[in-house]
Every structure is written in C-alpha cells, then in structure tokens.
C-alpha cells in the first residue's frame, strides 16, 4: 500500500495527495493497492512537480489503522505528525488544538 507525498513549493509544508488535490494531513490520502494505481499516482506527482506545485515527490509505504492512513517508516511518521520533541509544531499541533 502506497500513498503520494511531497512538499508544497511555496512554503515547503509536507502534503499528501487526496481527493484529487494536495492535503495538509496524511489521514485521507489516496491509497494505491496495485501497480496500476501506483503508476497513476506517480504520474500525478510528476505533473504536479512539473507544474511547480510541489517538490520532493515520493510514493511511500503506508498501512491503514482504524480507517486512517499511517506511514510505515518512522521518517514518514514524523513528517506526517511533526517533530517528536515538539508536539506544538507540525501537523500534530493542529490535531491537538
């Protein structure tokens, strides 16, 4: 299972591809369950990169926990939440608020 992630060009904020656009949180990212969808997501990422919407585009491994998308690797977990040492920063800050 993979989702498409990148950083927004204007402010560098981490984003994930969901519902036909780039979302600020990973929760509802569109999941590729098969190679064909991976290819489609990759093409979307390449187009968004070429269109100067996002940079550093990657497909990352995820699992689904309680109906919510969760990255597999620690690096991506931290990108999706924010620094583990500052819960007031990053995506987790808005979640807590």
């Amino acid at each position: 299972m993979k989702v498409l992630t990148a950083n927004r060009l204007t402010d560098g904020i981490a984003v994930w591809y969901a519902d036909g656009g780039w979302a600020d949180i990973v929760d509802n990212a569109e999941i590729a369950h098969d190679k064909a969808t991976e290819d489609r997501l990759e093409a979307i990422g390449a187009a968004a990169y070429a269109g100067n919407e996002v940079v550093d585009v990657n497909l990352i491994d995820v699992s689904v926990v309680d109906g919510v998308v969760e990255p597999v690797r620690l690096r991506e977990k931290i990108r999706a939440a924010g620094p583990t040492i500052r819960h007031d920063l990053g995506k987790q800050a808005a979640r807590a608020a």
Partner: protein
Amino acid sequence: MYRYDEFDHDFVQARVAEFSDQVQRRLAGEITEDQFRPLRLMNGVYLQLHAYMLRIAVPYGTLNSKQLRMLGHIARKYDKGYGHFTTRQNIQFNWPALSDIPAILADLASVEMHAIQTSGNCIRNVTADHFAGAAADEVADPRPYAEILRQWSSVHPEFSFLPRKFKIAVTGAERDRAAIQTHDIGLHLKRNAAGELGFAVYIGGGQGRTPMVAKKIRDFLPEADLLSYCTAILRVYNLYGRRDNKYKARIKILVHETGVEEITRQVEAEWQELKDAELKLPEADIRAIDAYFAPPQLSDRPEGDETVKLARLDSKRFSDWLDQNVVTHRHPDYAAMTISLKGIGEVPGDASDSQMEAVADIAEKYAFDELRVSHEQNLILPHVARADLKAVYDALVDIGLATANSNLISDIISCPGLDYCALATARSIPIAQEISRRFASLERQREIGELKLKISGCINACGHHHVGHIGILGVEKKGAELYQVTLGGSADENTSVGEIIGRGFSSEEITDAIEQIVETYLGLRLDPQEKFIDAYRRVGPAPFKEALYAGEAKAA
C-alpha cells in the same frame, strides 16, 4: 567587531536582490526545481522533512546585540518562535516559507548578516575559538584572519564549485577550542621564536562516514602568506580532489590517498608560484582588519572580587554556575561566560525568540554588545566585569538560561536528527534529552567531571559523534532506530577519533548503556582529577566492553 564597508553592503544587497528575483521566478514557475536547487543552496535554503530550512551565517561565531535581536525577530515573524544554533556557529530556522525568504534576507542585510555560502560545495563559514579576544591563554585574536579568509573566499570564482564543501577553522591558543583538526584546513595562530605571528597549518581533517584527523603540513606559516598558502591548498584540492564519488570527494580522502608527504610537496610547489605575488597580505591591511576586532575598553573593576565573594555566600546556585560556566579572562577584573543552551531536558542549541532578545539586552547592558555562538551550540558573553556577574546570572535565571553544565555530560552536542532532517536515519534530540534528564543532578555531573557527549542522527556526523569522549550515532536497522556508541574521541589539541565499542543499542537501552559507561569510568579512574578521556586512553575499551556486553557473552 567587523563592520561592513561600502563594498560589503553593496555585495550583500546585490545578493539579496538577485536571490529575491530567483525566488520570485521560481514561485512564478519560470524556473524549474532542478535549476533552482543549486541557487537556493548557495543561499542557505534547504528542504527538510517538514518545511524549508534557512541557515544563516554567523561569521566566526561573532554577533552583536542588534544582530541577535534581529534573529529573535525573524524567529517570531517568519518562523515558529525559535532558532537552532549549530556546530558551525551558525543558526538555522526550521519553518520559513520560501515566499518569505527574500524578506528575511533583507532584514538580515539590514544588520550586516546573510546566508551566503552556508551550503554548497564552496568554502563555508570560517569558525573560530568562541573565546577569541577574551581568553587568557590566547596568543592573538584569530578572528581578523577568519575575516580575511571570509573576504577572500566569498564568491571566490575559482573555489565556488569545489569537489565538495570546504571548512576552515582558526584558533589563537594552544588549547584548541575550535576543533581545528577536524577541518579541511585547520589554522593554529602562534608566535615563532622571533615573536612573529604565523600559523601551524593542518589539512585533511573531517568527520562524516570517513573520519580523519588533520595532518600538520607546515609548522609555521607567516601571517602575510595566509591567503597564498590557502589558495595553494585549495588549488591542489580543486585539481585532484575526486568528483566521481561524493563520499570520496573531501580533501581528507585526497590527503589520505595521496599521502601527506606528497600532498605537502604539491602544496608547497604551488605556493612557490603564488607566495610573492598579489596574494601576499600587506602588513597595513592585516592591521586594518585587526583594528575592527580591537577589544572593548575594559576599565578596571577591582570591586568584582568582593562582589563575587559576597554573592557566592548568598547563593549556592550562583556559586555553582560561576564554577562551571565562567572562565578566566585576560583582564583579571573580567570573565568570559557560557550561556548554556542545554537546559536539562531541553533541545540542545535551541533558543526562543524572547530568549534571543533578552540575551541581546544582557549583552548590550553588561557585555560591551558582544556575543559569540560556540561550535558546542551555546552562546558566549566574552567580556563581562566580574562585578556584574551576579546581575547577569540573575537575568539569565529569569529567562531559563542559567543552567550550570558547561563541559559536563549534559552539555551535549546534538544534530537535529530525524525530528527535522531529511538525511537523518534516527532521532538524536530525544536521546540527548533523556541522557540530560538521567544525569540532571549537578552534583553527580560534577563528580563525573568533564565529559563531552556528542550525538549524530546519521553517518554525516553533524553532531560530531566521532570526536565525542562518548559518541552516539543513530542509524536505522530493520526499520528501527539503533544507537552505536564510540568511546575515546576528542576534538581538542589532542584530537582523536572514537572507537566503536560493540553492538548498538535500541532507543530504550541507550541511556542505560551510557550510564553504565559512566559508572565504569567512575569505578576505574585513578582519582577524581583523571578525566573520562584520560582514563579511557589509559585503560582502553576492554573494561567498558566488559561492563556493557559481558552478560551477553556468558548467556550465549
């Protein structure tokens, strides 16, 4: 301290205008990321995990109050209320929007600061002893030479596209506080028998995946020859340094593969061509730069002794802080002090916007407007009258920066690690915090004595783990963080690279392992005066291995 002349102002303003235009064109989609990346890197803009990161140069770690106040302003206005001081004596902001960076650079330029050459394969910010100009053991202030190197290396046409980044450090004392032997070029300013100033020159030091201690290639280089000799070194490196493999591209690899004798011969041969030409520094020019670094007028303040004595009686905490964070100044009525950015359980090197502003106020009121950033990620007030120490201490207590732990086990160097860095393989900061909390007791830390603990979150070694008395390297193994321990590293005048002690530890085990190492040291040291590093050098790794792993061997 150095003040920009007209040329410097024009140069920095021109760069702000140029990069602002590049950012605008990037945001408008007129240039691609591939075209933009090298441009942003030349201006200190990285892309990290959560956002862009902006690294701002603090030349040889010297700042005035106005500049620190501006950094506080930038933290508040454009970032998330804090900044991170680094091992290159720079500061990084972790959350700036690309669209705000032109405004940030314009603000910086208004206080004679910039982010030029804080990244890329060029000559980076030249670092220096953070006690320069104040230390009692100093031969001469190394910063004028660092400034000369800065002027020479800024957008140097020949050295802007080197095989890899290039780092220079200068110290002016026998006691090396600038870690010069871990640099591409390390310069030790000293006097010869005739009393003339010059440098012992070291090359090929570095950390990263292939740590090497620099080799001395010249015992005394006259000060007038500084630029011609550095040019000769850079030329040899630029010509022969490897460009085929990023991991073998630093000068340390060239020195290692060529051999010290041969590379010294090459440098000297190149230098013969250069030494009597236009790069020879005119005496008048050196002294003109020197004048910028003239120490403040330190009037006698003999009342300091009595004031300090009484304040000590009044407050044990002040007394402890004095013993730990205050060092001897060349003027007996003054002191140099470390403002620890390593509060127990805090993030090493981080300071909030209001802390930066408050420290700027303190420096303005009590320290002749002068501040330093140390490569150990602390702030320094180099000139404070002993009579004012208690007032400064009280002001630091008010802002939570009066931790007495300079050079103790909780004075940890740590890179940002996987909490921020796109290159990291493991987190470093939470490990630093946990170790700091474990050893929170000042009494216990002082019993342990001087101990340099350094943590990196990947093999690039930004956290200097190779040269920590205790070094910790975080790696990723089978999807989990694993921490490898090295012992016996050192970054002073007796630089050494630490040795890996054995298998790594999980994040849950690492603090216990560090405690076990410390307890082992306490058990075997000859007396409380024998420092950890000296004890390690005497006994070697065996007792530490035994303490950490003997149980496993028996169980197996």
